[in-house]
């Protein structure tokens, strides 16, 4: 699958996940990498990018010894961007389904 396309899908899925609740870096990487079959190291830079673009925000929580745990959540800008991406995706899927299901003989 085209890399730009795949990256777009991963971004959409990350944002959708985080629209449900706050999640730690590990949780996001685990769910996305398992369900989409992409490496954790592919998902992590996307988290950084979305956070740099202010689509995600970070909450830190000190839990026990070791580094504070980071929890990502969607910002207002991120929510609005997610709605737009979901609408584009659903429209795209409908069009692809029409073509795949259609008879063009």
């Amino acid at each position, binding site marked *: 699958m085209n*890399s*730009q396309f*795949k*990256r777009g899908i991963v971004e959409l899925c990350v944002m959708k996940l985080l629209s449900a609740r706050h999640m*730690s*870096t*590990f*949780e996001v*990487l685990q769910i996305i990498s398992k369900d989409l079959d*992409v*490496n*954790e*190291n*592919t998902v*992590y*830079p*996307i988290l*950084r*990018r979305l956070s*740099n673009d202010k689509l995600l925000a970070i909450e830190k929580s000190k839990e026990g010894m*070791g*580094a*504070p*745990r*980071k929890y990502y959540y969607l910002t207002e800008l991120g929510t609005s961007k997610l709605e737009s991406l979901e609408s584009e995706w659903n429209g795209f899927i409908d069009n692809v389904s029409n073509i795949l299901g259609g008879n063009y003989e």
Partner: protein
Amino acid sequence: MNKIKFLSELKEELYDHDISAKSIDEIVEDYEGIIDEAINSGEVEDEIITRLGLPHSIAEKLAVFEDENNGIKGKMIATTPFIATIIFFILGMQLDLWHPGWMVFFIVPIAGVMLGARFNFRTQLVALSPFVATIFYLIYGFNTGVWHPTWVVFFIIVVLGLLFEETGAKRIIGASMFTIIPIVYLWMELNNPSIYNLLVFIVLIAIGLYLGVIKLSFGEDNIINRNATIAFVVMGIIYVILGLTLNWWHPTWLMFLTIPMFVMYRVEEKIPLVAYTPFLSVFVFIILGELFDIYEWAWLVFLVIPLVGIFTEDKDEEDIF
């Protein structure tokens, strides 16, 4: 590989891939958090680290994404060869200053240091010092024909290195001695020139050896480094003797370009070929200019730098996915 070793290697790889110090700290902290959470959820440390992959691959992927965040600075660095070339041509065609107008090409590495993400203020000063010293030495030499004893300006490289990269006695005593003794030598040469004034540097060598600033290691692992250190010291002595006796200060200074190339080769692993090309280009450019007086054509050799960069370029985002 355990967590500490993994994070340490990751930090080094991120530094080698020109990622900013702030980003490196964030990324290493994040990966530490990922490993800790994986272990807390029942995974074995070795398994999570193996699944995360090699620090080199992680850094490569992150470098592609971080590049987009350093956009403006990266673009500015990339344009400096073209800006330098334009200025060089204006100086040459309008003022017939092909030489020493070629010195505008120094803005290329200087911009790389000043705008590069991996440099903070201290490392910038240390990294800039060889260029500043060289520019001063060459401009003064070309303008006045005086190459001696101005070569003492190169001691500023050692002084800044000691001030910003060492601690304790080595830092204070070393920086002081490497400042005072060259100034003393300069004063002696200006007032009473004599080849015997060079003997004052024996004091500097003794202090350098005592503090460990000058090292001669005799272990088997460091035979190459030892031989290279000796070679560079001998090179320096030969340069000063050739200058004092035959006035061969320029372009014999070119031999010192072997020092940064050797240091890169020995100190940094996986140094790309393109990193050597600026030094090799300067060497060929000066030789062509001095021997054949073709500075106005010799600049073409600098095109080797971007060409080598293009042909040896690493992965782009396509390959990351």
